[in-house]
C-alpha cells in the first residue's frame, strides 16, 4: 500500500488538488452566481442546480480545453522545433519523428515494449500517435462543451436583457466565445514559452523539469 502510494505520488497529488480546486470553484461560483441573482431580483439556486448549470459547465470547459490544447501543442511542436539550452527540447540535431531504432519499434522493440509498438501497419501508426490524438480529442470535446454550454449561458443573459437568443452557429463566431477562448489560450502559451526560456538559465535542484544545477546554459535536452 505504502509502496503503491509512493510509486504513484505524482498522479495522486495532482488528482487530489484537482478535485479540491474543482470543489472550491463550484462552491465559490455558486456563491457568486447567487449574489448576482439577488442583485438582478431573481431567486437563488441550490448548489446542485448550479453544478449542473451551463454557467458552471462553460467556466470549467473553457479552462479544460485550453490546458489540453497547451499540452497538445507542446507534444507536437517539440517533435520538430528545438530550443538551444532548454531541458524541454530534444537535442538540436534530432528534430522530427526519429528512427525506428531510436523509438524502439518493430524489429528494435524489446520484450517489455507495448504490443502495438512491436507490430507494423495501422496499429503501430495509431499507437505512435496515441498521446497527441487523445489530448487532441479531449481538447476538441472540451471546446465543444464550452461552445454548447456557452451558448446557453450567453442566451440566459440575453433573455435577462430582453434581447433575442442566438443560435450555436452564431455563438461560435461571437466575441463572447472567442474572448473566453483567447483569454485562456494566451495565458497557456505564455506559461509554456516562459518554461522553455527560463529553464535555459534557471535551475530547480532535483526536478526532472530542470537541468542539473551545474549544467551549462547551452546544454540542451539535459534533465536533472
Amino acid at each position, binding site marked *: 500500500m505504502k509502496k503503491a502510494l509512493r510509486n504513484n505520488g505524482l498522479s495522486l497529488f495532482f488528482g487530489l488538488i484537482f478535485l479540491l480546486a474543482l470543489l472550491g470553484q463550484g462552491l465559490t461560483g455558486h456563491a457568486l452566481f447567487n449574489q448576482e441573482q439577488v442583485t438582478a*431580483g*431573481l*431567486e437563488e*439556486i441550490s448548489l446542485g442546480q448550479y453544478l*449542473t*448549470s*451551463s*454557467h458552471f*459547465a*462553460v467556466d470549467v470547459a473553457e479552462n479544460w480545453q485550453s490546458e489540453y490544447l497547451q499540452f497538445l501543442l507542446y507534444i507536437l511542436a517539440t517533435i520538430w522545433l528545438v530550443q538551444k539550452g532548454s531541458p524541454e527540447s530534444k537535442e538540436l540535431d534530432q528534430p522530427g519523428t526519429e528512427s525506428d531504432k531510436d523509438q524502439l519499434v518493430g524489429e528494435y522493440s524489446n520484450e517489455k515494449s507495448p504490443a502495438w509498438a512491436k507490430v507494423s501497419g495501422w496499429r503501430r501508426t495509431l499507437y505512435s500517435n496515441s498521446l497527441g490524438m487523445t489530448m487532441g480529442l479531449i481538447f476538441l470535446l472540451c471546446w465543444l*462543451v464550452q461552445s*454548447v*454550454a456557452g*451558448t*446557453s*449561458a450567453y*442566451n*440566459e443573459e*440575453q*433573455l*435577462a*436583457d*430582453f*434581447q*433575442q*437568443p442566438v443560435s*450555436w452557429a452564431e455563438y461560435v463566431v461571437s466575441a463572447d466565445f472567442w474572448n473566453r477562448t483567447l483569454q485562456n489560450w494566451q495565458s497557456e502559451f505564455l506559461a509554456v514559452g516562459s518554461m522553455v526560456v527560463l529553464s535555459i538559465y534557471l535551475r530547480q535542484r532535483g526536478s526532472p523539469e530542470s537541468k542539473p544545477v551545474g549544467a551549462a546554459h547551452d546544454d540542451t535536452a539535459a534533465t536533472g
Partner: protein
Amino acid sequence: MVPLTHRKPGTYVLAAAGIAALMGVCGCAPEGTGAADAAQTFHQAVSASDWSSACSMLKSDTREKTAQEQESTCEDHLRSAHIQEPGAVTRTEIYGRGAFVEFENAAVFLANAEGGWKITAAGCTPNGDAPYTCEVGGN
C-alpha cells in the same frame, strides 16, 4: 479498441449520460411547454380584458415597476397598453431560468421564478441589436 459486440453495456450508459449532460447544459433538453403556456394564458387574459389575471402572471418586480412608471395600477396600465393579438406561437426557447416565446406578431420574455414561469416583458418587438421594445415590462 474493444470490438462493438464485446462492448460492455456500461459504455452505452456512459454515452447516453454524456449526451444527456450536454443537452442539459445547452438548455435544449425538453422542459415542457410551461413557458409557452404561460405566455399564451397571459395573452388570453388580455384578450378577455381580465386585467387582474393578466397582472398576476407578471413577475412581481415587473408588476410593481409597471404600476410605478405609469403612476397607476398594473391593471390600468395593461388596459391602456397597446398589446396586439399575438397570433400563433412560432418559437419557444428556454435557457437556464429564462425563456423567450415568439408569436407571429410579438414576443414574450419570461423568468422561472416565484413558483413557475412569470412574464418579465410582453408585447415585445425587435429593435435591431438593441433590446426589444416592449409594451409591458422590459428595459
